[in-house]
């Protein structure tokens, strides 16, 4: 069963990875998005994330359920609140029988999350405050 969480607590990558381990799966792919300092010439100081609860959780369920229905396991966590450089903002993990599906579905999940899940970042850069990317 999938595990989905959106909240202010730091993302515990090790604990989330453990949720993906299971004898039926031979491939685990995880993606971790972190707060980057430089985007071209723009220097980021920190990022504040906010979400529309519980619509964001519902949207994650819509992403995870069809993939779980194919026999894989999905673990997604997104942090909200104040994040500093190198902090983990998002964790997406897929465990599947074979690596091909795990890679494909992990990429699909993070790409679709960035389009369909109502979460916003407010980036405080050295020169300006920017919403989104």
């Amino acid at each position, binding site marked *: 069963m999938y595990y989905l969480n959106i909240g202010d607590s730091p993302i515990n990558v090790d604990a989330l990875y453990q949720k993906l381990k299971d004898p039926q799966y031979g491939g685990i792919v995880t993606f971790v998005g972190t707060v980057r300092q430089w985007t071209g010439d723009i220097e980021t100081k920190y990022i504040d994330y906010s979400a*529309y609860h519980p619509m964001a959780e519902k949207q994650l369920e819509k992403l995870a359920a069809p993939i779980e229905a194919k026999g894989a396991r999905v673990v997604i966590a997104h942090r909200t609140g104040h994040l500093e450089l190198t902090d983990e903002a998002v964790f997406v993990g897929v465990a599947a029988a074979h690596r091909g599906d795990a890679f494909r579905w992990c990429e699909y999940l993070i790409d679709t999350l960035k389009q*369909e*899940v*109502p979460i916003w*970042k407010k980036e405080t850069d050295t020169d300006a405050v920017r919403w989104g990317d």
Partner: protein
Amino acid sequence: MGGLVMQIQVKLFAMLQEALGETVTVEVPATPSAEEIKGAVSQIAPNLKQMIQTSRLAVNQEFTTNAPIQLQSTDEVALIPPVSGG
């Protein structure tokens, strides 16, 4: 258009919330389209029109299509600015 008008509250997020607060109250035609609701919010904040136009509408936490929306007074209506999670 039957000329019927209803008053609705629209939840706002991100830069729209920062500019206008957590909700705005607008008048829209009965059975409005998403475009009509966005237009009504734009009238309150013409300077944010572009951001409002690129936002999506959600009713009861589901994205809408642009078909007319059968709104009930208890429905939760929200404007979703372009998302930027991840």
